[in-house]
């Protein structure tokens, strides 16, 4: 299946801003079952400088700066990806064995994964998260079953509520109040998995809208869990599904802070208004 996505971010300032520096994670990366066919990034006003690179997680990052005074900036990312639908791999390994293999990280793959075991700016770890995860992780349970169970519990026990949180809401509050959006549920699930010694990363992307798709009107986020031998298994706790065919992967990192779609610093500008629009449809 081929999906076309358009992600438009607009900043409107009450006073002219100068010297704006922006970094964006908007270029979809090649991923398991995903091939990038086309990507275009359009910025108005025309930036004075642009460059792009690959970050330490393998994501494409673009940087641009605008030095002339301006009152609006529009960043439009258009992408076309081909997705080969696949069923979720079955990780039959017991979750404790996965944890122990990560401690040793004997293979290159396991070494790369072990960076995602540790806490990160938006994801603390600790007994509270381990305790929440515990019912899904009884002794000897295969990893994929345990992860699916945890996702289902989050899906059932937490309420999707766009007004409950912001981009900086700490994950402990999400656990306490049991509400939030896709970003919060992803962070929470990652905190649970890491607290058990498993490697989990944050995936930033888009979700094709349609019946039963929660969180499709903006950029979306879900979780990926490391399973030795299989690589990474994606799971979307907001919709309680294994992404297959409707999810477009853009970038991944330890948490939101590594892959923030658009972040920047500008001088001046007064009050600001941000508008974000995302649409994903089959080509």
């Amino acid at each position, binding site marked *: 299946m081929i999906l076309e996505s358009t992600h438009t*971010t607009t*900043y409107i300032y009450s006073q002219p*801003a*100068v*010297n*704006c*520096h*922006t*970094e964006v994670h908007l270029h979809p990366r090649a991923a398991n079952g995903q091939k990038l066919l086309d990507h275009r990034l359009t910025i108005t006003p025309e930036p*004075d*400088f642009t*460059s792009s*690179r690959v*970050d*330490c997680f393998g994501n494409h990052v673009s*940087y641009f*700066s605008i*030095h002339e005074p301006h009152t609006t900036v529009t960043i439009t990312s258009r992408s076309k990806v081909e997705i080969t639908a696949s069923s979720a791999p079955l990780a039959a390994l017991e979750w404790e064995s996965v944890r122990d293999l990560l401690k*040793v*990280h*004997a293979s*290159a793959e396991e*070494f790369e994964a*072990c*960076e995602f*075991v*540790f*806490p990160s700016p938006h994801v603390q770890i600790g007994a509270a998260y381990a305790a929440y995860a515990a019912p899904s992780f009884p002794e000897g349970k295969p990893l994929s079953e345990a992860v699916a169970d945890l996702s289902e519990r989050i899906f059932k026990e937490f309420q999707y509520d766009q007004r409950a949180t912001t*981009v900086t809401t700490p994950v402990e509050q999400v656990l306490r109040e049991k509400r939030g959006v896709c*970003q919060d549920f992803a962070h929470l699930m990652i905190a649970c998995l890491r607290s058990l010694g498993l490697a989990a990363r944050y995936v930033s992307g888009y979700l094709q809208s349609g019946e039963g798709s929660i969180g499709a009107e*903006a*950029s979306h986020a879900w979780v990926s869990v490391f399973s030795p031998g299989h690589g990474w298994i994606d799971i979307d706790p907001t919709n309680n599904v294994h992404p297959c065919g409707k999810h477009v992967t853009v970038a991944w990192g330890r948490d939101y802070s*590594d892959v*923030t*779609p*658009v*972040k*920047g*610093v*500008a*001088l*001046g*500008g007064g009050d*600001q208004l*941000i508008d*974000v629009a995302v649409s994903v449809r089959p080509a």
Partner: protein
Amino acid sequence: MAEFHHPRRRLCHTVQMNREGTQTSHRLDPRWPYRANPGFYDEIVDQAGTVRPRWRSLAGSLVSIGHESLARRWEEGRRLIHEHGVTYNVYNDPKSNDRPWPVDPVPMLLDGQEWAQIEAAIAQRATLLNAILADLYGPQYLLRSGKLPVETVFPNPHYLRPCRDIQVPGGVHLHVYAADIARSPDGRWWVMADRAQAPSGAGYALENRLVSSRVMPDVYRSMKVQRLAGFFQKFREALLGLVRRNVENPRVVLLTPGPFNETYFEHAFLARYLGYTLVEGGDLSVHDNRVYLKTLGGLLPVDVIMRRQDDNFCDPLELNADSMLGVPGLVQAVRSGNVAMANALGSGLVETATLSAFLEGLSRHMLGEELKMPSVATWWCGHDGPRNYVTNHLDQLVVKPSFPSMGSHPVFGERLSAAQRKEFAAKIQANPTHYVAQEQVAISTAPVWDDGRLAPRHLVLRVYAVASNGSYAVMPGGLTRVTSSLETLVVSMQHGGGSKDTWVLAEQEPQQITLLQPRVNTLEISRATFDLPSRVADNLYWLGRYTERVESAVRIVRTLLLRLFQETGPTLSQAGQAAVPVLQALGYLTLAPGGALPSPAQWEREILNLVFDSETRSSLAFNVHHVRRLAWLLRDRISADAWRILNQLDQQFSGKAPPEALQVNAAQDRLNHAVITLSAFSGMVMESMTHGDGWRFLDIGRRLERGLQMTELLRHGLANVADSDAAGLQMLLEIADCSITYRSRYLNSMQMELVLDLLLLDEANPRSVAYQFGQLRRHIEQLPESQILARRPAEARIALDLLSTVQLANVQELAKSDAQGKRQALESLLSRLSFELRNLSETLSRRYLSHSVASRRLVAP
């Protein structure tokens, strides 16, 4: 799999007898009694009380200098420190944020042989840490192979992922490195801590040397002390080696977090000594992926940034987003190779104490060498064996968080009760990777001069290395810091510790080196001082305004004092009464305006408070202190002499008030001195400062303030003065320092028109309002904007308007008063001038000085 690790060496707690012999002839002179603490290695005497060979010459010199002379010399030393303005900021000290730098007159001594070992060990360690950084920010073989556990790096907040795979010039991450080393009772040196982020203290070491070599020049010369200048020369070469542009005069800047940083003095001092521009984050800007310095004349390219700011705070875009000190886009510019950083961003990673536990193995693995100086025994609790050792020996250990920013302080096991230890051990068991334990070292002692006698204090020596030709050159000397008492083993300048110069004794006469560059290639003669950061111009402008504000107040108060205190005690003459509204309008008097006239006694109190009180905002001392603070911010811009003058002024006003009976005289004295000191500063500014943009802003500040003060003085002083009030007019002339001019022109005939003409309209009188306007106009036409814009910019129009307004004024009309004695024309002219002057100040600030527009973060999901 990470290797099991357990420190092999335990520090020796027992004291070994010294092998240096016990000849009685080498005991300390009985006139210099000194008792070393037997539990520790003492630098000057061994266990038998014999003076160690390297100290014998100095011990002899102390005897021949004698107590009194040493005290006198030390007085001189302290004066030098004050005069140089050597300070150290103490956090959370509301009273002032600069404290004199504490130095001890007795230097720390090391002989050449021992030094050679320290030197080799520090160079080796710097090489090793640089190699570790290159690996961790590159291929990460150390982590993959388990030579270093991933737990020391991946969760470490000092591991900066945006800096991964940045190519640093020459593969050098650590350009300057420092180690804190200490000596255990058996005489061996140990590394206590690594400083790899932006090591501080080298400037203080240099300042200590300047002081000790001037206070004890005879001793210093006779002992063949190794010089420090060569190290700084290498330092400069190292940074120049990073320049990529092919230019003859590359720009190196020293990036400071600002005046509130604890070692700001050192930043300013080093910038000046090394010839770099001192900048704050707000002075730099990234344009088109290049770093520029924002100056009055525009943007100037920067080649190398020597940073004294923690790397995490350097760029709010890619690093700590909350940083107000950073330069957005800096990491990207560094990544592109358009600017070099020293030290490289991310180098703070190797300061992590956890790393010490693995250095021995890493040294063997990476350098094929044994570590020449061991780290203080360190156990990382993430491994089972070391953790068990730590929890069983808590009483002998200091436990620290694995990463400093985890927000907890070191825990000294010996200070915990048995129950607390048990509780703490459980905490470690719960989160073992978060803790690292180090042996508490019984660190050595050296004598300090304490209240006229020698007393032992514990010490830690900071040694510096700089990357030089593929290796590291070590500063022959360093910063010795001593504890505040013998009871503590923690050396902290924040908690009352002191410092010493460190003398490394040479076998031969040391070489003379000066930092003045030899003529290699001739530079183009350049008359412009283009690199004036807008922030500096702003400070100079306010320095000009405040010195003038102080001078004006001093003159007014002095004139009043003379008139108030007559033989008969405090009385208030008619002229004195005329001064009340002037002082009130200028904000010097706390009395409510328009209220009942104070009694002469109240007057006396008010005036004397102005001179002696330093707490009230309106007092002279307060304003003088502000002048000193501005000058302090400009230490790298104004001459040492100009600084000395303003420092002296501050001292003149910081003395205690004399007994009440003597206050009038003392005040008179203080004010007379202040007038002279201020004149010295004006003279220095006119004659010794290059008349570039910096000077121009200082003088604009001065002219603008003098114009304002004179305008207000005339407005309030002449409003109530009748034509016939000769005494009132006389007083105004005196305040304006124009009595002599007036008398030479008009003899003793006091006339309103004549006074007005001289003080307001006479363009040849440097104290008149018209003169200030003429100067302002001339300065503003020289400013960069006026040179570029075809149309006269707003500030130039205001200045021209001010000047022509007074040029066109008619003095007879201004002097006319109505039936109530009010001079309407004069009042409306003066209030317009006053308004326009303030307008001018704002316009200038907006155009040139407002560099500090707040930046904002943008985040979009």
